[in-house]
């Protein structure tokens, strides 16, 4: 290795970039851990990953920087988001700790570990560095250099990684695939079942409120009670049904009040109430 290539500092621009983006990366990491919703966590993590991609580029790992963005931020994080959607995007985690002492232990371990690592790095003699200029230039570029290593020195590991990927793919399919244990129903059977079953017409639609998308709000039956049948099965199972059986009554009341205010019917209201109470008393006496 050429001794002349060794340097002790990077350019000022890189330093500025490090301090700014490094802060962003740490904030992203912390938000990943601390934010309640999985979606937010995923987005914070994606941000951190992009920052890391920039750092890779700055460190001369051009190929890895691009791959980081394409594979990690693009593919893996999207996979995460898919699963988050599948599992329930709205469900916010409770951050209340249930295992006694877990949070303190985790914090202690994390802090201790971090301090140890940093102390270890601080103790190592790393005052100078080589730079990748020579290594990248040796085969005509970063990608060529990597390819040279992958297909010569690390070819065996490369093959095995390929096998690992295949295995992982098959494994994921096996894990998520559900074997059908009974014969699929034919169309005829399904229609016969429907005719004989309880619901000949389609299931009732969920109640619709003007305020928001209301797939998760059960429709009201003529007597005002909510029918769970109207909400889709998945939401029912997750317990994400919004109970609005009292909502309409509250709305009515509010409307009445507002119209009353508007029409200045306060006294009449009071009179109506006063007229009602004696009759109620009479009723109770008659009952006696």
């Amino acid at each position, binding site marked *: 290795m050429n001794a002349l290539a060794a340097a002790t500092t990077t350019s000022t621009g890189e330093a500025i970039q490090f301090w700014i983006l490094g802060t962003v990366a740490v904030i992203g990491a912390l938000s990943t851990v601390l934010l309640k919703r999985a979606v937010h966590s995923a987005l914070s993590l994606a941000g951190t990953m992009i920052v890391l991609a920039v750092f890779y580029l700055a460190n001369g790992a051009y190929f890895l920087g691009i791959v980081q963005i394409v594979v990690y931020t693009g593919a893996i994080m999207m996979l995460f988001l898919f699963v988050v959607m599948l599992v329930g995007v709205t469900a916010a985690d409770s951050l209340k700790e249930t295992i006694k002492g877990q949070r303190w232990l985790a914090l202690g371990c994390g802090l*201790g570990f971090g301090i140890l690592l940093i102390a270890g790095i601080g*103790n190592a003699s790393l005052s100078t560095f080589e730079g990748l200029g020579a290594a990248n230039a040796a085969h005509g570029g970063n990608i060529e250099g990597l390819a040279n290593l992958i297909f010569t020195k690390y070819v065996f590991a490369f093959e095995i990684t390929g096998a690992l990927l295949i295995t992982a793919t098959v494994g994921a399919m096996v894990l998520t695939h559900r074997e059908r244990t009974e014969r699929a129903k034919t169309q005829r059977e399904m229609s016969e079942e429907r005719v004989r079953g309880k619901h000949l017409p389609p299931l009732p639609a969920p109640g619709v409120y003007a305020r928001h998308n209301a797939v998760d709000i059960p429709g009201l039956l003529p007597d005002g009670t909510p029918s769970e049948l109207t909400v889709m099965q998945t939401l029912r199972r997750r317990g994400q049904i919004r109970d609005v059986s009292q909502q309409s009554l509250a709305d009515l009341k509010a409307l009445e009040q507002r119209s009353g205010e508007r029409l200045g019917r306060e006294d009449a209201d009071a009179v109506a109430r006063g007229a009602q109470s004696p009759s109620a008393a009479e009723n109770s006496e008659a009952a006696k």
Partner: protein
Amino acid sequence: MENLIALLVAAPLLGAAVLLCGGRRLDKTGHWLGTVLAGASFVVGLILFTDMLGKDPENRALHQHLFSWIPVEGFQADIAFQLDQLSMTFVLLITGVGTLIHIYSIGYMEHDERRRRFFGYLNLFLAAMLILVIADNYLLLYVGWEGVGLASFLLIGFWQHKPTAATAAKKAFLVNRVGDMGLSIAIMLMFTTFGTFAFGPVLESAGETSQGKLTAIGLMLLLAACGKSAQVPLQSWLGDAMEGPTPVSALIHAATMVTAGVYLIVRSGAIFNAAPDAQLVVVIVGAVTLIFGAIVGCAKDDIKKALAGSTMSQIGYMILAAGLGPIGYIFAIMHLVTHGFFKAGLFLGAGSVMHGMNDEVDMRKYGGLRKYMPVTFVTFGLGYLAIIGFPGLSGFFSKDKIIEAAFAKGGAEGWILGSVALLGAAITAFYMTRVMLMTFFGEKRWQPDAEGHEPHPHESPKSMTVPMIVLAFGSVFAGGFFAIGDRFVNWLEPVTGYDHGHSPLSAATVTGATVVALVVGVGIAWAMYGRKPVPLVAPRGSVLTRAARRDLLQDDFNHVVLVRGGEHLTRSLVYVDHSLVDGVVNGTAASVGGLSGRLRRMQNGYARTYAVSMFGGTAVVIAATLLMRAV
């Protein structure tokens, strides 16, 4: 001829096997089979006896080696038999009396639904007893010894539905275990001392061994004899053993098994001859038991228990005689044989009385039975005359000889022993007369039982009376037949040896003294029970009487010393066990358990908790690595 010896044992053993394994289909015929096989054994014994008589007195012993039992380097145990004059005497007594009692049992056990089993046990007893007396080594003798113990246990507890019988069987078995331990220790000592336990080598080389070892062996043999023959201090089981059926009492606990101790001591005579200290203890045990049993016999109202006390006392005579050495061996055996006749006869008579009296055993509820059961009265009376030593009858000759031999021991010892034996003779006369008077004389005292059934005393069936008559003949004539012309002495002398001794008194004086003792005993008994009517309820009596009714407090003694002592020992051991041993063990367990309980909390099943420990572990590893680097 030798080959017939095994047949002696084989016949009853076969009977026992067939009867005990044969099941119900033998219920109708089983007792006949048992009796016939016992008789067969007796016939074989007779054949061997006549054969033996035809030989030269010095070479009469027969040997039969069946097979090697445990052939190990340096340890040779054989199943081998030896039939000499001593064994022959026992064989004839056992099979003869045994056969008679089998016949008697046919009538006595007629109404018992388990009669087949009873005969099986009887045959088993005969086989074991025969093994005991014809074994040619101590180990095989031990087999027979344990066999008779087992048979005795089974037969005492034959009526196991009675708690008293079950308890008595257990008691007999347990007390016998003590003696059996003695015998097994004696055998082990023999093996370490002589390297063998065959009679021949052991007894021949007995004189050349150290005094201490011989004394130890002798004392252990004596302990064994005490257990089996109900001698002080292991005497307590015999009285309770009377819970068994009467034929059992007659055969096992009067005529044969309880005399096995005497056989053992006489057989081991060479050992005792060479160990005077052991011999002295034997004599003391015999003398003490003689008086002890006699006193107990005086106080009992239960006819069988009175006879049991008498048995104890008579065996005391035999042990005493056996302890005298060559002066007494032969007379011990002679008294044993005559005693076998008259005591078996007395027991059978008692059984006959009970049979006629609805199994009543309290003599105070008998009285005047001579009119109702004449045959029983006559045979029982002859047995009575024999046991008290009425001149001319069996007991007179054999007991007189023992008393003579006791005096002939010489010195102060001789005087003391002789006096004790004479005193015993007087007491024997007293209590036997008491039994006789209370049972067969006086007014009838029986009363209806709780259910209103008045007993109807009646003579027993032929199958019961015939054996009694035969035994009565033996009681009358055996003694005279043996004693006149020293027949028995000549017969046994080659085996046991014989020594006249030097009696300070002439034979006539001793005989006179014996007769005087007899007359005094009978006279006192007549005064107490013959002239006055016998009260139905036993009077309070003196301290001695009350103690004697309780078997001279032997059970109380055992209870206080052994049971209580054992309980205290056990309790303290249990306390030590609980507090110390368990404390340590439980403490360890509890601390481990407590620690585990704490550690278990770490295993809460949450993956995150495990992850923390992993992470912490990693941190520790890194810290250690850094530290190692730094150092």
